[in-house]
């Protein structure tokens, strides 16, 4: 998303609107992607509440909470960065997006360490030195946990790449447009919102 108009648009304002709408529609599809997983988790919670709660208690609540704070902070920085770009304060925008990207990496590192811990505790289905779920319902919970947070982590990775890319390009002569930065911001906010749903369902059902 450059500052230049391109075919087939005859009007740059129209092109910006289209870029924005395209991102919004894409995010709707992403919402359906995670929505299916969230519905599955909620169904499990409804039909097997005891094993679900038992499994939830074995997750690392501290790691999950820190990660929540990390993502929320990074979203704030991205919002500031987008505002900065709108005011042409590109240096500030670069810093904001860059730090947000680093926070995203921090999220991934913390998540990776959690996975490693779960691997060692026998909570990773199909892997690890032993399997110690306690009940089939808890195993289903861990299945859902790994798929949902794994898919989410993949999206965080993609988001980090986009944020870093934007931060880099903001320092050059052809920086991304305001709408471009906002679109990356929207993506990052969706990643955040998905986590805001996953965290209570997975970590706080105890």
């Amino acid at each position, binding site marked *: 998303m450059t500052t230049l108009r391109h*075919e*087939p*648009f*005859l009007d740059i304002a*129209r092109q910006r*609107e*289209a870029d924005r*709408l*395209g991102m919004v*529609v*894409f995010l*709707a*599809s*992403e919402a*359906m*992607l995670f*929505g*299916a*997983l969230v519905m*599955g988790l909620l*169904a499990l919670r409804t039909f097997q509440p005891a094993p679900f709660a038992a499994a939830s208690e074995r997750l690392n609540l501290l790691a999950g909470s820190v990660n929540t704070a990390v993502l929320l902070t990074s979203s704030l920085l991205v919002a500031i960065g987008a505002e900065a770009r709108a005011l042409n304060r590109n240096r500030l925008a670069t810093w904001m997006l860059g730090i947000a990207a680093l926070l995203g990496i921090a999220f991934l590192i913390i998540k990776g360490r959690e996975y490693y811990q779960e691997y060692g505790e026998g909570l990773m*289905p*199909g*892997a690890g030195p032993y399997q110690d779920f306690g*009940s*089939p*319902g808890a*195993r*289903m919970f861990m*299945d*859902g946990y*790994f*798929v949902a947070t794994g*898919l989410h982590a993949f999206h965080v990775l993609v988001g980090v790449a986009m944020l870093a890319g934007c931060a880099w390009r903001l320092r050059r002569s052809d920086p991304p447009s305001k709408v471009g930065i906002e679109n990356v911001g929207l993506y990052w906010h969706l990643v955040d919102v998905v986590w805001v749903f996953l965290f209570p369902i997975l970590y706080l059902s105890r």
Partner: protein
Amino acid sequence: MSRAGLHDASREEAAPLRTPAEAQSYLNDGNSLRSWLLTTDHKRIAILYLTSITGFFAIAATAAAMMRLNLLTPQGALLTAEGYNRAFTMHGVIMVWFFLIPSIPNVFGNFLIPLMIGARDMAFPRLNLASWYIFMAGGLFTLAALIFGGVDTGWTFYTPLSSTYANGNVVLALTAVFIAGWSSILTGINFIVTIHKLRAPGMTWGRLPLFVWTHYATALILVLATPVLTVTLLLVAAERLFGLGIFNPALGGDPLLFQHLFWFYSHPAVYIMVLPAMGVVSELVPAAAHKKLFGYWFVAYSSLAIALVGFLVWGHHMFVSGQSMYASTVFSFLSLVVAVPSAIKVYNWTATLYKGSIALNAAFLFAMGFIGLFVMGGLTGLMLALLAIDVHVHDTYFVVAHFHYIMVGGAVTAYLGAMHFWWPKMFGRMYNEVWGRISAVLVFIGFNVTFFPQFLLGYMGMPRRYHEYPPEFQTLHVLSTGGAGLLGLGYALPLIYLLYSLRHGEPASANPWKATGLEWTVPSPPPTHNFEDTPIVVREPYDYPLSHDSSIA
């Protein structure tokens, strides 16, 4: 208006190798392979899709031919059990995801939507090309699954058969469909943004051709339903690769969860296949009748209603699955409701013909074929929605007949109708009209001979996905196979005379059918940028009769 008659050798010199219009069109704008493979022109991308889906159709049709030949005898004449199971799986996977879903939207939607709304291209031309490459990547994985021995789970991949028990290249096939799903989603995004943001001045929503309305509704389904399939296939692959246990009851999982997730996408998916076909027919009928479409707004809103209610009926695939009685009752009711907007369209097409001035050309004959066959398919769908009937005929040939009436009798017939209607616009050549009509009739007859007996087979108790069967069913199977031969011939014919027309057909004028619509105001074939000047739309849609050959819309 030039009309290609019976082939006359003395006229061959008159049809030039390349017409002036072709020379200045998108077809001639760069002749290297690179210019085609790296194009961002929506019209060229449509042609790329056209060639690739034709290839996939041929593969899946071969699988079908082998199946029908096998069913000539009760013990199975051609294939082993394993071979048959792999054939019907491949037939389903390729036909659904690599032919039907992309067919009308990615060929005709891509080609026509910008033209119909007065734009120079799609909103995201490079994304459009990426969609095709992603589609081809999915296709490559499918071919790999085929070459490495095939998959035998059925295109529906029910668990725990697919997740735990099946041997074969299940993960390859799941990956193929997973990738193809992304192509669908990106196409949907492109359509939605294009229709919202690139309409020419004066092209209000109330002036859009119904083709655009139905593709808009289709795009909504593409964007919102496909991700659920994506996640579902991911879960099955994860279960196969990592032994997660989500669908495995021995590990506490629930096989029915798969069915809910799968059908939540796959029911709306059938509307992805049918809505564009209805859009085509909504163009063909007014054009043939030279009359305004009856009940424009009813037809327009019915497209949105089908898309919306289509998301609420998935449980009708699960009436005997062990799903709760009460849930089944609700799904049954909603499945009857969803038939209503489709019925509205059929009545409106019929009313459009009243006091029209109808040209009985090939395109219109295909449209008539669609209406007849779609009505049959839709009404048998109502039968299936009735709980007590479905308990008897679910998973029998009755269901097979029903969905082939809709998808083949409906969607493929409409695809051929679209081909016969817009071929002159896309390639600047008229084809042999007589052969066109022969094809339409042959397809209609061949189709009915193939699939009507299957309703009877199903009601009499013949289950589906059987490579062998009790001997009393043989007569109807032989009849069905015979019809399939006729149908195959009906499909092969257009391939011949349409390709022939590329070099030998009469050059087409801008508006050979004297139809309304912005696509008929540009040369045949169109130049790369579509319109010299942005059109300004002042007339209502389907504003017949036209005052002259090429109308300013």
